């Protein structure tokens, strides 16, 4: 097994364990920590594919900023252990088969990719950072700016809602 493949399996395994653990753990902080593990492993996988910039951004934005905010809120609210209740009786019987079906369909898609997808696996990316910035700021500059505007609106909406509750 080549080193790259070995690293891939280690990272992928860690990511899956982290994701399962995220659902499994009862305490919100432990779940948040598992989510950080997943994020960092995903960043490692991006790095393996040569997408250095995306990997770094994944850690800085998701692993760093967003998860810090999650943990900040959990700490601030002093959230305790979650209580498990049986909300739905269907989930007990249908949940596992549905999950299996979903996994099977994804696996099928991976094993036998559609015509266009097969070519998209191995592409050498020289100067990935430069390409991403040209794409973002030249070709897709309007959607990009609109998205940032949308996020700004969302933040202001959250602020307005929070302020109204105060009164």
């Amino acid at each position, binding site marked *: 097994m080549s080193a790259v493949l070995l690293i891939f399996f280690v990272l992928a395994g860690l990511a899956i364990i982290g994701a399962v653990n995220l659902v499994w753990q009862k*305490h919100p*902080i*432990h779940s948040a*920590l598992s989510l*950080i593990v997943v994020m*960092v492993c995903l*960043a490692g996988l991006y790095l393996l594919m040569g997408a*250095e*910039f995306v990997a*770094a*951004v994944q*850690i*800085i934005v998701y*692993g*760093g*900023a967003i998860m*810090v*905010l999650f*943990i*900040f809120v959990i*700490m*601030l609210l002093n959230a305790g252990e979650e209580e498990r209740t049986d909300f739905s009786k269907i989930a007990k019987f249908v949940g596992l088969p549905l999950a299996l079906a979903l996994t099977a369909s994804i696996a099928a898609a991976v094993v036998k990719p559609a015509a266009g997808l097969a070519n998209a696996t191995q592409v050498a990316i020289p100067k990935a*950072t430069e390409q991403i910035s040209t794409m973002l700021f030249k070709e897709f500059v309007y959607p990009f700016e609109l998205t940032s505007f949308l996020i700004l609106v969302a933040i202001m909406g959250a602020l307005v809602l929070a302020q109204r509750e105060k009164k």
Partner: protein
Amino acid sequence: MIESLVHALIALVQNFWFITTVKVILLLFIVLTVNAYLTWFERKLVAHIQARWGPHRVGPHGLLQPAADGLKFLFKEDPTPAGVDRFVYYLAPLLALALSLTSLAVIPFSPKPLELFGQKIYLWISNPDIGLLILFSITALSVYGIALAGWASNSKYSLLGGLRSSAQMISYELALTMSVVGVLLMANTFSLQSIIEQQDNAKHVGFLGWNIIGWTRNGFLFPQIIGFICFFTAAIAETNRAPFDLPEAESELVAGFHTEYASFKFAMFFIAEYTAMITVSCLATILFFGGWLSLFPATPFWQFTHYIPSITLIPFGLWVIYDGLKYETIWGKLVLPVIGFVMFAIGAVLLAGIWVAPLHAVNEFIQPVFWFTAKVFVFLFFYVWARGTLPRLRYDQLMNVGWKLLLPVSIANVIVTAFVILKWGQS
């Protein structure tokens, strides 16, 4: 027999994993030693700022104090408080230490490789194209060590410290990242090595070419002074040092996030903090002060400045002998005079490199390392100086400085730099 040994040695030197492991161990050893003596340096300097003597009992000038402290950390009782979240409680110091030590792996210390059996060994562990981004991603993660320590300790002071630190880190990370963008615009790369080399583009100007002054090839000035001030202020806040050390403000929170940590777990936080200081100093050196570049232009006329490291060793060695002779113990009778003499001798021998070619090569080799370390030392001095002189900010002041001063100013710096580069061309 000897031949096969030599062959084995050559094979070892050519083995990437072996060399990297040796480099990692060496770097760890150096950094941990520097850390230990940084505590001594800080205590001594702060003491002198406050008109005290500082540590002076253990060894001459208290120089063995770090060793005594280290031993104490190892042998102290290590109680785990009741009601802590065990896993996170043990994870937090480990995380803090591991992340801060990892960040040193991408810092290039010198461009000149050490040649051993025809194999070039560079003075860095790894030199990726996105070195700066990797450093920032590690910084982004390093908040968890502190925040989780505060949460897991099951103590209100710790929790407050952890909360403060996560809020502070989020706020200052923006300014930290934005303040560097000016330099990135000039360098056009994320590679730390290329950023340094770019500052040497305008030949024959020496320190004027550093990004802090920014003399470029076509004779324009792109000074990044504002970027540097924003960067260093934000960096002090990121490393939780005075005057931004609110997460551990001892007048309010006992010891903040590490109140409940004792023994070596406390030492791990301590080492993490000091290593972060070293990393930030290295980064400030690389981004704004030309990294390993000499203060003087690289022209034949300034060739003599290459002997500055050797020349400074000679009077320093003499001073150590003079100082050592004042002690009546074994220090004065043997240790210090011998150390002083060795320093003097090394300096004198290296100075002979003016006439002897191989010694000249040694001088050339230590040149970049000397300048890099000297600059890093200046920033470490700044850190301690700030701690000794500035009072701690109040919490609302801290937030105001971060959001209302540093962030807008660093964004303005980015915009101005971008327009200037657009108008007068790439450096």
